[in-house]
């Protein structure tokens, strides 16, 4: 279930929409007689990115955040599901993909690995516009104005190579490059995670400015709950390939309903040395996503788990117009002994 109420034809409000996205990867088996195993990296993921908003995706490593981003960009082929851009389903042919990728761009975590080391900064930014048939003069002007826009003086930076500038500056170049084709949606996959805190703050400020000035919509993927809270309007919490909770930032952070979201939020270190965390909210590591057991995949670590959690996948329950949780506890009809209809 996604946040938007069913049957309301508001497709044009959504910049980007994912409907039932799924992807599993085959894992090489240990011996020749072993059954082939699969990792379901992403299963049945649906959400809408509303025009002009930021959708945050949080979760720990292996939860499928990055696979979701790659599926949205169609960098990997989805097993099932649909992606809609501005209400129109994106087809899987070369021409449609080219048009789609012009509108939807991505910024990655590793700022140096995502730039060609043999191209100067301006060449990197011009690359997209040139591929899409713009003139060299136009592409160069665009590159210089974007460099200026992201806070890098073109006269000083345009002829430099990626290794000649700092990590924060490189990430600004990646942002400029992502904007070179005037996209409507930008997907940030841990784009500020590798930056120092003082530089991270500058880049976050830049992202806010760009979004307002250029009317962009963002998908912001991060493991850092504080950053996602700061930048997002809505947030999706993922665990082992599934969305466990989805809602407005205010609802999810102030009234988390899923036991995993509660644990994740309680795991954030306290900033006050006089009120330290005294007890770990959950124990153990996230399990391997290979051959997940039936039922709720969080059940083995969940202190509320009951028999029903181990047997049946939890249904999605709408707690309010802007808050959906996938947990037996929140569904009075689930058969969970402690189930209740109000958020915990």
């Amino acid at each position, binding site marked *: 279930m996604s946040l938007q109420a069913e049957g309301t034809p508001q497709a044009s409000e959504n910049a980007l929409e994912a409907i039932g996205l799924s992807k599993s990867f085959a894992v090489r088996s240990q011996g020749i007689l072993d059954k082939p195993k699969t990792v379901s990296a992403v299963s049945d993921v649906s959400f809408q990115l509303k025009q002009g908003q930021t959708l945050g995706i949080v979760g720990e490593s292996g939860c499928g955040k990055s696979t979701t981003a790659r599926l949205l960009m169609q960098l990997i082929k989805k097993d099932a599901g649909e992606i809609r851009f501005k209400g129109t389903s994106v087809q899987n042919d070369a021409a449609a993909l080219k048009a789609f990728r012009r509108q939807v761009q991505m910024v990655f975590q590793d700022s140096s690995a995502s730039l060609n080391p043999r191209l100067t900064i301006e060449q990197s930014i011009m690359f997209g516009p040139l591929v899409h048939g713009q003139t060299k003069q136009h592409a160069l002007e665009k590159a210089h104005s974007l460099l200026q826009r992201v806070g890098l003086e073109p006269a000083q930076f345009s002829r430099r190579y990626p290794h000649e500038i700092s990590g924060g500056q490189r990430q600004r170049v990646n942002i400029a490059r992502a904007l070179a084709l005037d996209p409507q949606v930008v997907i940030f996959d841990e784009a500020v995670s590798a930056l120092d805190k003082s530089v991270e703050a500058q880049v976050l400020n830049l992202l806010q400015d760009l979004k307002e000035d250029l009317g962009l919509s963002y998908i912001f993927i991060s493991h850092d709950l504080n950053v996602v809270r700061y930048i997002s309007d809505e947030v999706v919490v993922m665990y082992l390939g599934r969305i466990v909770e989805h809602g407005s930032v205010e609802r999810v952070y102030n009234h988390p309903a899923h036991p995993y979201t509660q644990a994740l939020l309680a795991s954030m270190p306290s900033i006050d040395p006089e009120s330290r965390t005294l007890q770990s909210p959950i124990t153990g*590591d996230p399990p391997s996503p290979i051959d997940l057991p039936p039922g709720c995949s969080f059940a083995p670590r969940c202190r509320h788990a009951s028999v029903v959690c181990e047997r049946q996948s939890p249904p999605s329950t709408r707690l309010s117009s802007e808050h959906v949780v996938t947990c037996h506890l929140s569904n009075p009809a689930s058969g969970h002994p402690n189930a209740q209809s109000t958020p915990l």
Partner: protein
Amino acid sequence: MNAETPLLSLESLNVRFKTESGVVPAVQDINLTLNRGEVLGLIGESGSGKSVTLRSILRLLPERRTNISGRILFDQQDVLKLGAKALSSYRGGDVSMVFQEPATSLDPVFSIGKQISEAVRRHTSASRSEARARALGMLKLVKIPSAESRLSNFPHEMSGGMRQRAMIALALSCEPKVLLADEPTTALDATVQIQVILLLRELQERMGMSTIFVTHDVGVAAEVSDRIAVMYAGRIVETGTAKQVLMSPRHPYTRGLLGSTVNGAVRGQKINAIPGVPPDLSQLPAGCAFAPRCQYRRDECTQAVPPLTMQADNRQIACLRVAEISA
């Protein structure tokens, strides 16, 4: 030796790296003391010299390319003057280290049990079976589930959190007096990070060891530290109790660092980011290295490096204008 003498002290420590493009001062004029049973948090951004300081304490820096001056006193012995034999009993026996990336710091071709028992046998007179028992005890101590069967596991067979627990077990197996922890929770997921922080805190209290905990994460520092030292461009700019430094920072850099976190920032409003970037260590500006980014900068800030001065409330700050700023 009496209880007031610090267990470990760094006196005018300078570390310079010889590179192709000249000599880079990575750490300059560090004076630090670590008391018995104390946890000292060392915070700062990348390139500020935190890890270099830590590594110099264990003499892990490449000797040919590094120029170290000053003194590192452990139990009144100068570590920089230790001979090969004394050094190898000091490393791992008296002082040991936990690194950020357990996957690359453990040996991939030996089982966890083997690696811990090897360390135990290296530093004590334990027999093979005693060392193995010790390894098992350590794995139980760091709360690795089904420790018995984990002894024979190789690092790649364990999850990231489990590997970090195993490395902590290895580091503590010879009951060191000082534990050096270099971003030990940075590579871990949030729900695992808090477990490892709590584990380290519990073990530190139980075993009474002194700890230097390097982190760039202010929240992690708040969770573990008694005292905090803040580094910027190779120098310490502020020290004090965790409460003093984190709750009422006085150096403009510390104030900027704490002010620029998104914690508590209101959505849609700008974060008070420090302008500019940390300086290139091979081209440090004259005077205070933070001056080019500092809103309180005056001409005198660029004349000479401000000394780390003791304040009335027993904290140290390296800023010429600290009295005016905190007034």
